[in-house]
């Protein structure tokens, strides 16, 4: 464990401000709520805006590959803002998970489109799985392969240009790329419609092999660590925003001639929640800075993995708790479609399942901290 600097950095706060401005303009609560009524609504304008105009698609791509050469730390800032706005963007799936895989596998032709923000990629694995593993078979023959099988509930599984499929583990790991025309994607109405899921089918789909063996396994692990880390930041941002909205509400809402925020039972619950949300934020930034240090070779991947699991398992339940308390403390208003709380509740509860729920993540953490089950 090296010392991790946790203080805010100026360029990150600039980045935060520009992302926040974008979402305030292009991803209002009304816009997000609208996706529940029209799941086929076009979000490509928003995706172009962050990916191309703000250049965030290139964030995690090294400078020598034409990217911005930023780190998990900057990606976490973007993700906190995504959580804060419950923004329906392909950032996690394409700019973090797929891009990290592509960078580690040095998949330059794939990366060119991703970096420019002109193409988006998705990795074919069930959203709730704790490991990036498609669960289907890939038949490899030399540099090409064919893919067959179905993968349910893939994050941003519809509308991607490229699909990455991972199978096997350890030395048997294979990562391939299938282009969109060979994939049958069936989007479905989601409990959380701010992150579109789809069921994918591959029928003897031709595929390009991007990597295999231990190098591929290491790339998959790097993507998992970064994915969990960035998701934890989203959850921390969401939790903070749900908390802030609630604090503001209880200060204004009057019942029995007093603001409801003057009732001690409400005050104490908010004090506890503030602590939980603050801890989630601290854990998220700790994980992000540690992942950045690990990617820069200044910290071991094990430590980055450990921190990603600490932040992931903690922030996922904190976000749900914050959103649930927000609904409850808004009373009847919290149950309405008109107030934005439901968007936070749905995203938080769905996020809690993504990349493995907190108990599963703790099982992954246990061997890293030498706490064997038996």
């Amino acid at each position, binding site marked *: 464990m090296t010392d991790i600097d946790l203080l805010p950095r100026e360029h990150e706060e600039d980045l935060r401000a520009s992302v926040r401005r974008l979402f305030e303009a292009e991803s209002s609560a009304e816009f997000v709520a609208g996706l*529940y*009524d029209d799941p086929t609504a076009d979000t490509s304008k928003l995706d172009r805006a962050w990916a191309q105009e703000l250049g965030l698609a290139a964030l995690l791509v090294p400078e020598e590959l034409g990217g911005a050469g930023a780190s998990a730390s900057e990606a976490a800032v973007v993700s906190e803002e995504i959580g804060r706005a419950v923004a329906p963007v392909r950032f996690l799936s394409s700019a973090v998970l797929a891009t990290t895989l592509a960078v580690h596998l040095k998949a330059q032709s794939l990366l060119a489109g991703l970096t420019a923000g002109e193409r988006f990629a998705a990795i074919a694995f*069930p*959203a*709730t799985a704790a490991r990036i593993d498609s669960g289907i078979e890939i038949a490899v023959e030399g540099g090409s392969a064919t893919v067959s099988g179905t993968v*349910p*509930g893939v994050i941003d599984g519809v509308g991607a240009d490229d699909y990455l499929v991972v199978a096997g583990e350890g030395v048997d790991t294979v990562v391939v790329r299938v282009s969109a025309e060979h994939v049958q994607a069936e989007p*479905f*109405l*989601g*409990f*959380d*419609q701010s992150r579109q*899921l789809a069921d994918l089918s591959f029928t003897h789909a031709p595929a390009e092999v991007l990597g295999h063996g231990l190098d591929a396994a290491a790339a998959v692990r790097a993507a998992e660590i970064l994915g969990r880390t960035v998701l934890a930041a989203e959850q921390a941002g969401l939790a903070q925003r749900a908390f802030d909205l609630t604090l503001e509400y209880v200060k204004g809402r*009057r*019942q*029995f*001639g*007093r603001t409801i925020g003057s*009732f001690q*039972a*409400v005050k104490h619950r908010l004090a506890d929640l503030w602590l939980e949300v603050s801890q989630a934020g601290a854990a998220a930034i700790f994980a992000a800075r540690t992942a950045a240090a690990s990617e820069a070779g200044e910290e071991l991947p094990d430590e980055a993995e450990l921190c990603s699991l600490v932040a992931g398992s903690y922030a996922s339940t904190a976000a*749900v708790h914050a959103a*649930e308390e927000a*609904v*409850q403390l808004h*009373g*009847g208003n*919290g*149950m*309405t*479609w*008109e107030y934005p*709380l*439901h968007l936070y*509740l*749905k995203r938080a*509860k*769905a996020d*809690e*399942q993504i990349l493995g*729920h907190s*108990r*599963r993540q703790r*099982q992954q953490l246990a061997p890293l901290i030498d706490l064997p089950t038996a």
Partner: protein
Amino acid sequence: MSTEQQRIDDAVAAAAAATTDAMNDSERYGVLYDHGLAWVNFPEGCGGLGVSTSLREYAAQQVAEAGLRTPPRGSNTIGFGMAAPTIVTYGTAEQKLILRDIYTLDTIFCQLFSEPGAGSDLAAVATRAVRNGDGFRVTGQKVWTSGAQNADMAILVARTDPSVPKHQGLSYFLLDMHAPGVEVRGLRQITGEAEFNEVFLTDVEVPEANLLGELGQGWKVANTTLNNERVAIGGGTPREGGMIGVVAGAWRANPEYRDPLLHDELVRLWVEVEVARMMGERLSQKLAAGQPGPEGSGAKLSFARNNHELTGLELQMTGVDGLRYDTYAMRRPSEYSMIGRIPGYRYLRAKGNSIEGGTSEIIRNIISERVLGLPGEHRVDKDVAFKDLPK
């Protein structure tokens, strides 16, 4: 057999004799009402026989055994559960005539209590009822009204005097939902559907005859209604009744849902529901024996919390399936059911269990003050004229 039971038996026999195959439902229910079998504990002439409340179950058994059909309570929930007990307590002879229509389902009721600014604090209602000749003219906005789109009448709490402290200036009315100036709009909920409504009242004329109880006594009358709403979720619930049955059933039926990491939590919730059931069972036996206990207030609290946790667990254990939704289309069901929908719907809908019919925070106040005898909250609104309170 007691005299009261004998009277019930006689009434059932007479009702059976008076019922013919040719009768429609309304007529059949009317026969029961006229023989005092609608609510046997109500006075004679009001659909009852004036017998002990504890004989209600006995009467229901006799009616069922005689093959007499009874109206489904769910078709007129507010009418049966809230309007009828309030009318029989406070109504004039003329007002009591409506009891028969409630029972025969010819008059469906809804409830106009809550407002955007008066949720937990019901006494803060701002809807005004202003004297207007022989009657009142009512203007205001009500919310959380279920079934308003299908209702014929409403029970209404409105402010008749804003110059006195807030609990003193309220009156209670029966309002014709078909009157001019009544507008009903579905209120969309986080589940997508609009189970409840907003009701806008604009210069609605209410005759003097529709004032229930005395002018300015609305708070007292409304509490009769609310006490009937918050009746215990009583005994007689079978083991695994309700949400636990749904979740445990899903676990049993789908081996792929059996995540060992969630097993202890599932069993723990099973136990939570079961001990709540046992407490309800004890309460209901005490009530039947004429020994009411304080446990009733707790039932709503554990019901809400257990439903929160169970639906959250269900969504978790169902993995990707839990992230699928059936429809967010804005529909207007007259009542909701947790069965027959997907885990996501149940998770969202259950959030309302700790809000509707008194938030869990209000219930904790009630328990701590009425059951445990702890002091009430500091009130700044008890002695100030309603119009002078900060809003």
